[in-house]
């Protein structure tokens, strides 16, 4: 069976897009082969570089299998006249590709009909691929597309060549004006342009290798090896692992190597954060550290060429880095001429959001909100040092006007923290307080992802929450709610960060209340006139945070989705409490009693819903005198006692004990459903029983809504 090769040759594809596009092309082609009954007997291998997406399918059938089917034709009555076949019979035979004499007859309820065995010839793989591959290639999702030769198709970058082969035969594929052939292209500089591909499969990979083009895995291996080798020339040194950076350089090269460069050690007086940002984010260099983790005055650059025998490339890279570091040092020194405190006023000229005012306005709101948050925490016995939080909130955004942040925007917050550490903020401030302020400012953008650490101090946590809550409140108040993939201000990420900080710092805060207070920072302002009304705001904020909290329970705490749903149905406003309830619920959930309780609660809910749909109301309260059956009497008698016990445990936040208490009701509830019919004709009895169910649901759903728990299909 022939091997199949497809190579889509392109001008340089953005590094960040290659991996997912390669994966997608593989899935698309695999699905196509499947759909067209051309199953791959071996494996499918991807081969992608900045200039190509390729894949190799080992052994596909040269053609689809033939298909034989029985088709029905005209009725015998029409097909034969006086024993002779009519034109209808001939036409059918011709269509079926058989002789009239080979036609068969079938009897159907409608009468006797002609029938024929038709063999549909399978089409060749080459034909099918040529016909279908253009759709699959153009279907690949790219975050940003372009035209280069309108009005033809769009692609990520101009598509320049195609190789499509079955073994050594070209497939007559044409896409976007480019005809596929059997010639690929090698490395831009290290190889001549046209590389003949002798055949699909390993010969393709070999041809590319000799043209200085390596597979992704080979490139990664070669880069790691080169980084290690270069690092070994400095005793005790290590290069800093950085997987995103490694992925980037792997996808920026076709034939990589690495060089070790150095910079003037005097630049080490600049903070490590600044040096590493310049190296990693701007120059795509790996940083080196000594055995103690201290930054070394060296860097590793990954090249898209074999080597640097004359040291020209190293020299050039060192020159660029020197200029960058000189700039950074110049910015650092310039920035010190104006302290953070003196910069506050300039924040009036930095727009936060066009309707929400400047960063100066934001600073004032965040200060106010942080005071409110501190007060909430204080009532629960947590002390936020007012001298620290107030000053930190005041200075948090001042670094936005510094040259260093204008140059390295990714260092906002961090730069503010670094400057607060070295500047005399206020002569009266004790050194320790100043450092705490600096730390809180430094940390206040954290956590930037679900993996990132939360701020170190309580003040840092409060500032981080206050800053983000202010942004979310303002945007939601303007009705700018994230939807689908649209979240230009990354509000989801910021809300995730709030949930994470509250959860990890175990802060007794209620989300909706906090967000309403954040919104109240705009009270009586011009902006407020553009706001959506209060209840719409609260509703959208509550839903939004509930989703974020559900995300946290599921994706970070790894709770089952039904546990998350059950817990959040009871309350989704107190993060710490929801986590505790979810933990307890996850623990008791596997027990048999609990499974049964969940089923019963679902049943109760269903009965109440159906009753309500039928217009049958429960009584105002359970009337003990109206209870007839022993099972319902026992259950009703037990409720107040059990409810009191559950409430006691709940108050003490001993949710596991509370849930076990509820589970104890199982035999009583089971007996009730065994012996008692709820929907009886007697209206009084029925209403009373419905009231009993309602009471049960109300009293015992405060920790979680058990009806949300998915049971094994026995609802």
């Amino acid at each position, binding site marked *: 069976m022939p091997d199949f090769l497809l190579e889509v040759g392109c001008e340089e594809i953005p590094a960040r897009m290659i991996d997912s596009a390669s994966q997608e092309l593989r899935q698309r082609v695999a699905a196509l082969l499947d759909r067209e009954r051309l199953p791959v007997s071996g494996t499918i291998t991807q081969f992608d570089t900045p200039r190509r997406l390729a894949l190799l399918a080992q052994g596909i059938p040269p053609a689809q299998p033939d298909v034989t089917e029985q088709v029905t034709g005209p009725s015998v009555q029409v097909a034969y006249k006086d024993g002779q076949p009519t034109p209808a019979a001939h036409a059918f035979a011709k269509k079926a590709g058989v002789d009239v004499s080979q036609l068969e007859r079938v009897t159907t309820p409608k009468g006797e009909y002609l029938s024929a065995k038709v063999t549909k010839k399978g089409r060749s793989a080459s034909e099918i691929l040529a016909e279908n591959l253009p759709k699959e290639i153009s279907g690949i999702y790219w975050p940003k597309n372009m035209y280069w030769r309108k009005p033809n198709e769009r692609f990520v970058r101009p598509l320049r060549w195609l190789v499509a082969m079955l073994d050594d035969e070209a497939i007559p594929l044409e896409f976007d004006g480019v005809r596929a052939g059997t010639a690929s292209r090698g490395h831009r*500089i290290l190889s001549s342009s046209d590389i003949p591909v002798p055949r699909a499969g390993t010969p393709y990979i070999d041809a590319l290798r000799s043209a200085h083009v390596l597979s992704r895995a080979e490139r990664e291996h070669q880069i790691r090896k080169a980084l290690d080798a270069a690092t070994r020339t400095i005793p005790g040194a290590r290069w800093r692992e950085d997987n995103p950076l490694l992925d980037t350089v792997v996808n920026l090269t076709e034939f990589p190597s690495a060089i070790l460069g150095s910079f003037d050690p005097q630049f080490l007086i600049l903070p490590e954060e600044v040096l590493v940002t310049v190296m990693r984010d701007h120059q795509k260099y790996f940083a080196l550290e000594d055995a103690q983790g201290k930054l070394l005055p060296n860097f590793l650059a990954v090249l898209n060429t074999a080597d640097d025998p004359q040291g020209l490339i190293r020299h050039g890279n060192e020159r660029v880095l020197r200029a960058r570091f000189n700039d950074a040092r110049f910015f650092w020194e310039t920035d010190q001429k104006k302290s953070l405190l003196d910069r506050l006023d300039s924040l009036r000229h930095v727009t936060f959001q066009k309707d929400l005012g400047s960063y100066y306005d934001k600073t004032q709101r965040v200060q106010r909100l942080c005071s409110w948050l501190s007060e909430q925490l204080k009532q629960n016995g947590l002390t936020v040092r007012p001298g620290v939080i107030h000053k930190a909130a005041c200075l948090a955004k001042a670094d936005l006007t510094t040259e260093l942040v204008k140059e390295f925007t990714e260092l906002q917050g961090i730069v503010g923290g670094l400057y607060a550490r070295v500047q005399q903020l206020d002569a009266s401030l004790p050194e320790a307080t100043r450092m705490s302020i600096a730390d809180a400012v430094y940390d206040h953008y954290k956590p930037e992802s679900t993996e990132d650490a939360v701020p170190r101090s309580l003040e840092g946590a409060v500032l981080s929450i206050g800053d983000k809550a202010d942004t979310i409140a303002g945007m939601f108040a303007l009705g700018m709610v994230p939807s689908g993939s649209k979240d230009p201000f990354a509000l989801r990420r910021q809300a995730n960060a709030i949930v994470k900080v509250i959860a990890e710092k175990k802060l007794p805060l209620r989300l909706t209340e906090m967000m309403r207070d954040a919104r109240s920072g705009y009270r009586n302002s011009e902006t407020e006139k553009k706001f959506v009304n209060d209840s719409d705001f609260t509703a959208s904020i509550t839903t939004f945070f509930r989703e974020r909290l559900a995300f946290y329970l599921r994706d970070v705490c790894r709770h089952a989705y039904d546990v998350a749903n059950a817990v959040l149905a009871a309350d989704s406003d107190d993060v710490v409490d929801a986590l505790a309830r979810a933990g307890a619920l996850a623990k008791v959930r596997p027990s048999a009693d609990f499974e049964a309780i969940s089923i019963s609660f679902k049943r109760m809910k269903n009965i109440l819903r159906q009753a309500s749909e039928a217009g049958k109301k429960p009584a105002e309260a359970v009337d003990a005198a109206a209870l007839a059956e022993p099972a319902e009497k026992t259950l009703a008698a037990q409720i107040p006692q059990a409810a009191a016990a559950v409430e006691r445990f709940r108050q003490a936040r001993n949710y596991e004990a509370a849930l076990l208490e509820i589970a104890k009701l199982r035999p009583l509830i089971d007996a009730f459903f065994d012996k008692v019919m709820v929907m009886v004709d007697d209206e009084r009895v029925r209403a009373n029983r419905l009231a009993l169910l309602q009471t049960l649901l109300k009293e015992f759903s405060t920790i979680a809504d058990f009806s949300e728990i998915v049971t094994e299909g026995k609802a």
Partner: protein
Amino acid sequence: MTPASSNPLTFQELILRLQTFWAQRGCVLQQPYDVEVGAGTMAPETFLRVLGPRPYKVAYVQPSRRPADGRYGENPNRLFKHLQLQVILKPPPENVQELYLESLGAIGIDLRQHDLKFEEDNWEAPTLSAWGVGWQVMLDGLEITQFTYFQQCGGVDLNPISAELTYGLERIAAFLQDVDSIYDIVWARDPETGHPVKYGDVRLADELQFSVYNFESADVEKTWRHFELCEAECRTLLEEYAARAKDRHPPATDGHTGSEPFNKARFPLLAAYDLCLKCSHYFNILDARGAISVTERVGVIARVRALAVGIAKAWVDQQTSESGTPDEPALPREQKQKKKSAKPELTPAAT
């Protein structure tokens, strides 16, 4: 010192080599545009030429003024005014990347000795409602060229697409000559004495004095008035064009009596564009001067953009109408109708 190439080019030789290279590949060699622009893209040879259906190939050096980037001549890497060599290839040939690499050979860069990467970099100019897709070309870790396939300009979808190559001349020269400061670049060398004239000799006073002007002494109120005068005149021209293009026999404002056909080709859209460029430059001065407040900034950018979008739209109309420039045959009607409508691009507020 290890210069990137032996016997490196002077700054002016670098320019001459690149110009010769592109002239030999069919480019018109234009001269720098004589109105202040912030980038080579804003010169009409790019902004207007990429619009409409006519193929064009051009190369020119463009001094680009960015008042806020001035550093009084004290920073070795930053300039208020730098020089770009701009190449427009409309439409781009199949081998446009290879041509570009050849041009590096023409200035003495042996690519086999260096590390070259095309790294994603998508260009966008909100004031022009223009954007494109492409790369920054990195040579030994230094960005030497911006390589862009224009997609939209003045809010108009482009057809055909143009490729734009923008060479950063100071950077390339500093690289070739292996100097750490732009001011140390040898601009010219006396052929007889070998005496060098350096970049600093030619341009330092420029950097210092314009930094002083842009940051300290530009008269805010007068600059605003300049801005507003240019804007008003530009807008008037655009309104007149729109009105007369709609009504084919209007009473003309220039004293002619009505019923005279509107000769589109005569209409001074190029002058309107100059006025728009002046607005953009005055805005940049006001910005550097710190004279534009929060509430104004986004609004002022939108005002300049409105002019650019209006001009682009009118320009396309002028280029594709029957009364186009005399040496160009009118385009078939069908092609005119295919013309895309202007779609101003909204850019999020700076945060």
